């Protein structure tokens, strides 16, 4: 199949499966030392905290009307107000909870489905594998957002958790696909073969030998699904398919769009919510970059900043190894 090559690239160099717990721990620390991953985790952490305490620390009730209609940012309203004088900062702070809950619920659900389908397909092989792979490919090819819109549009009332469930049901396929390929290659490795030859029970092989080696890929799939879920949910809210009275960042944009915020030049109405999405999305993407570089060392940057390399006259290139005469200088 045309598509086998993609997964080969993301999966070839895996963390050594036979590694002792100590090595695994060191590798985990290595992951945290990755600047990209760290930045991403901090961003996500800030939003997670906001999701918990946002509704309490919000300066006012996001639904409270006031006489400051459509006012730009001021001391009273840091991010201005909407057409009914509601405080936008409060809407964003209160809305964070909905975004995070739906994002992570959908992420967890989709990851569970993805792990079940992917690992099973990769481990059992044969006809079962063919069927499960075909199933995940079908779900990959069917455009998810229109499907979600059609499902959500036919539900009488689509609340946060319903949306999360719909997103999870349509968005698990990518993770399953990658996990299947990786399980397939793990199954042929010596330590798994050895465990099978020793008559270990399948359940134990899966939990003790296979799953620990899939951690990075499962994590990457989870982060990817959370990103997808956050964006989908906000998109759904923006086009008004889901309940427009539950605050999340998409709802803010929905009201902004409905009330011609663009034409009225009310930038404070739609810019902050968008930037929050972008920031959270960037945090998630950075974590995934970190995982990618952790799993595929070829992607890691070469270790030095471009400026330092230039100073030493090094141009890292394929096929033309840089030559500096430092060894001689050192000797002199």
């Amino acid at each position, binding site marked *: 199949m045309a598509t086998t090559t993609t997964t080969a690239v993301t999966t070839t160099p895996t963390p050594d499966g036979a590694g002792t717990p100590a090595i695994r721990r060191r590798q985990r620390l290595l992951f945290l030392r990755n600047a990209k991953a760290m930045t991403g985790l901090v961003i996500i952490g800030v939003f997670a905290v906001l999701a918990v305490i946002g509704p309490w620390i919000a300066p006012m009730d996001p639904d409270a009307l006031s006489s400051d209609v459509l006012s730009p940012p001021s001391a009273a309203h840091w991010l201005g107000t909407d057409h009914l004088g509601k405080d936008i900062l409060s809407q964003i702070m209160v809305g964070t909870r909905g975004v995070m809950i739906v994002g992570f619920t959908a992420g967890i659900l989709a990851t569970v489905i993805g792990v079940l389908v992917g690992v099973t397909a990769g481990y059992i092989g044969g006809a079962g594998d063919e069927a499960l792979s075909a199933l995940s490919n079908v779900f990959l090819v069917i455009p998810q957002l229109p499907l979600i819109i059609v499902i959500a549009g036919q539900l009488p009332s689509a609340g946060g958790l319903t949306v999360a469930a719909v997103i999870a049901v349509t968005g698990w396929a990518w993770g399953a696909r990658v996990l299947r390929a990786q399980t397939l290659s793990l199954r042929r490795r010596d330590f798994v073969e050895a465990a099978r030859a020793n008559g270990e029970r399948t359940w134990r092989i899966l939990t003790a030998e296979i799953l620990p080696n899939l951690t990075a890929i499962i994590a990457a799939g989870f982060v990817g699904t959370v990103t997808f879920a956050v964006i989908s949910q906000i998109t759904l809210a923006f086009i008004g398919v889901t309940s427009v009275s539950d605050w999340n960042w998409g709802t803010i944009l929905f009201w902004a769009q409905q009330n011609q915020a663009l034409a009225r030049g009310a930038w404070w109405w739609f810019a902050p919510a968008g930037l929050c999405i972008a920031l959270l999305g960037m945090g998630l993407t950075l974590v995934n970059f970190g995982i990618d570089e952790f799993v595929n060392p070829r992607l890691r940057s*070469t*270790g*030095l900043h471009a400026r330092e*390399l230039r100073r*030493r006259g*090094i141009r*890292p*290139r*394929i*096929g*033309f*190894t*840089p*030559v*500096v*005469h*430092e*060894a*001689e200088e050192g000797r002199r």
Partner: protein
Amino acid sequence: MTATVSDRRPPAVPERTPVLEIENLSVDYGYDDDPAHVLRGVSLTLHRGEVLGLAGESGCGKSTLAYAATRLLPPPGLVTGGRVMFTDRDGSRSDVLALSDAELRAARWQDVAIVFQGAMNSLNPVFRVGRQIADGIRAHRSVGRREALDRAAELLEMVGISPDRLRDYPHQLSGGMRQRVMIAMALALEPQVLLMDEPTTALDVVMQRQIVEQIAELRERLGFAVVFITHDVSLLIEMADRIAIMYAGEIVEDAPAREIYQRPRHPYSSALLHSFPPLRGARRELSGIPGAPPNMAHLPTGCPFVPRCPHAADACRAGRPTLGPTAFAEAGRSVACTLHDGAREVPQELAQR
């Protein structure tokens, strides 16, 4: 065009003129403050028409040496010092490491060609074999596509592959055939030096033998010099004129093949030879080398072989031994070991005459 090149071909029995001289080559791996010093002042001379074997355990730097000398080492490899002098047929000399990009590009394949480790991955999977041989020719000679393909067909025949395989893609060839195609490709411009990095490792024993014999036969006919890199010392003893043994990024012994086999002078050479069964002649006891190769990022100050050496003494820990004459001052041999400084008596197993 090929005729003019053939006319300049050296006589079949070459006098010992150097064609590639590696002097003091140092290579780091990693651009940061704490790189691994994977080659540390390696010097090696390849003479016209000879087969030089380069042996050592994996990770000793033997492949790095070949890649660095041609500047093909991938990032984060870094050549930090030394010269690689190439002597052309007309006697002109140039330093490969000092060439500009354009000059290096022009010299590649023409002067020095390489056959890589994995025949599987050395061929571009999306181009036909003929095209891959021809594009190398056309990059250096002003010939048409037709002519280059004709030459490619000739080359395939030379390595025993039917010319109608020109239109095959690499995945349609067997492993042995791919490696032959690589050899044909490398010989396309009649290079003076052929670097072969484990060219037979991925093949089965029968195929290995065929390829090795083919290389020997082609060298006889075309007169190129070969650097043959392998961890299989017994293979080298059969086919190489001279053998250099590497350990931890240094050459520890350099001697004619027969002599190093019968009379190793370095404890590591001796150990390495004893870890392979000889192909011919009397059987001898096999033994592995105890211990593991050192971590190249943190080498001790003295001789890197000390932890595994049965003859290690205080002198070995004091400083790094350099390549010099043996204790018996044999011509054409050198060794890097304190045992040959004259201060100690050479143990019996390293002193056979």
